[in-house]
């Protein structure tokens, strides 16, 4: 009973925050809505006794990825987005509405209007008996799904190397062009990112924000 009530509260809040993410004009506000979204999702995981996944959810998404989003937004000093009238032609709108209703209908039919209860071998009690959340996740991840797990880590490594390569290329060009003008040795590469932000805000004397 408590669980159901909590689920509906979480679900409603998640929906509201998700709408916030896509409708709000200020990018920082949108990012903060996204944080609350991810946080509430972690709440649902925790309610399902999946503490490990809940903690990882907050740690990785709310604690790292969105922080980087905000970092970039602040660095670029993005202002609020201009409002645009979204034009959806009537046939497309009709299709959108019908598919949405159909999806909700199917979802209700599949679940008989009840929130699904965990079925299968890994019920909360079974997980507890097997040695806890982390143990079970680790066992499955590093035995049954080891190959996909390693492959996905290779993918991430690939993306990291690619981004480093792309960043290096630009940097090499930029250094070549600016070296002639600069007689002083430039500071280390890592400090550039913050130094770069300074002129943007200093030149007009004031950091411009959405609420002005």
């Amino acid at each position, binding site marked *: 009973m408590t669980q159901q009530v909590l689920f509906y509260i979480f679900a409603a809040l998640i929906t509201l925050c998700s709408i916030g993410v896509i409708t709000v004009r200020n990018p*920082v506000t949108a990012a903060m809505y996204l944080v609350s979204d991810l946080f509430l999702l972690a709440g649902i995981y925790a*309610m399902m006794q999946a503490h490990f996944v809940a*903690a*990882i959810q907050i740690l990785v998404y709310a604690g790292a990825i969105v*922080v980087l989003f905000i970092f970039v937004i*602040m660095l670029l000093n993005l202002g609020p987005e201009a409002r645009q009238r979204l034009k959806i032609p009537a046939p497309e709108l009709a299709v959108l509405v019908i598919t949405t209703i159909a999806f909700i209908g199917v979802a209700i039919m599949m679940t008989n209007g009840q929130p699904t209860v965990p079925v299968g071998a890994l019920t909360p009690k079974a997980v507890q008996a097997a040695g806890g959340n*982390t143990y079970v996740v680790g066992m499955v991840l590093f035995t049954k799904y080891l190959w996909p797990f390693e492959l996905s880590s290779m993918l991430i490594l690939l993306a990291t190397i690619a981004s480093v390569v792309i960043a290096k290329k630009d940097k090499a060009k930029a250094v070549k062009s600016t070296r002639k003008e600069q007689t002083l040795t430039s500071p280390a590469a890592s400090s550039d990112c*913050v130094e770069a932000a300074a002129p943007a805000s200093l030149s007009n004397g004031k950091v411009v924000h959405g609420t002005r």
Partner: protein
Amino acid sequence: MGLDGQGLATDAATVQVIATIIKFVIIFILCMQVPPLMVWVERRAPALMQRRKGPNRVGIGKWRLYGLMQSLADAIKLIFKEEVVPEGANRAFYHIAPIFAVFPAFLIACAIPYGHTMQLFGYTIPLSIVDIDVGFLFIFAFSSLAVYGVTLAGWASNSKYSLLGALRASAQMISYEIPLGLSLIPIVLIFGTLDLNQIVVAQSAWIWKWGVIKAPISFLIFLICMFAETNRAPFDLAEGESELVAGFHTEFNSAKFAAFFLAEYVSMFILSLLAATIFFGGWQIPFVPYHALLVVTGGLTWLASLIGFVVLILKACFFMFLYVWVRWTLPRFRYDQLMSLGWKFMLPLGLANVFITAVVVAAIQFG
């Protein structure tokens, strides 16, 4: 504990909920005492180091109490000051930022085991506020949220100094979170659990079983990251008063400024508690095992737990003093030095540490 969907009908569950609330209130009150005391220490300790007197006037009536009431006077002054919101600030985030700064610290406090499980009125009560089996991850998850307070504060106050402070802080905190995480993986490998209470129990009263002896490199990395994560000297570039006025909280005043103070000192205290818990045996008294302590206290588990709690606080106090000590010893890093230390030294060291520990643990287990 917690809401498990079965309702709270059973007597024992109700007791646990009440106990949780009481424990939280006690820890909350304790944490609220940390900033005034630390402000006092932070004035008196450097005075001692520099052969000055430091604040020694404000006391109660004719008792001067070594100027201890100075912090109380400061707190009252801060709270009753007029609140000024800077022009052009993003009001919503300007008001939310101090809350964002304070709340992760108190949430982390929930996962730390403050003593051995005790028996009181026939009930078994664990002495961490919430007893979760992934305490380690819980702490990481919420400490990674601490950066929002600083970032939003700097961004929302519409000031170039604040913005620069916030940018520095967010880059720094993200960079040092990674070595912090890596430094604790060897501990998880050695003790084989993510449960902080079990880690403390496994460390036992014998010093050579403590985390600091078993994983000294981890402790070194953790110690450095502790300073970086709380934006304390020599990593206080986010404030950098010589170049950024006061960094991310330049535009904050009155109670909101006090909230940032509170957040900084509470997270220092919590990280000190954590360092004591993970590397220095937590509530274990050196060379006095728990069963021996029980004999001394005449079988009263609550008294033994209380002694353990005091021991943990004393261990944390050492780290709190270390914060002050280091602040008045080392000069501030330059920004590029900070970044190259984080990414080029701490990260490879952390990775190597994890690898070597994993090999050794595997060799002991399977060899």
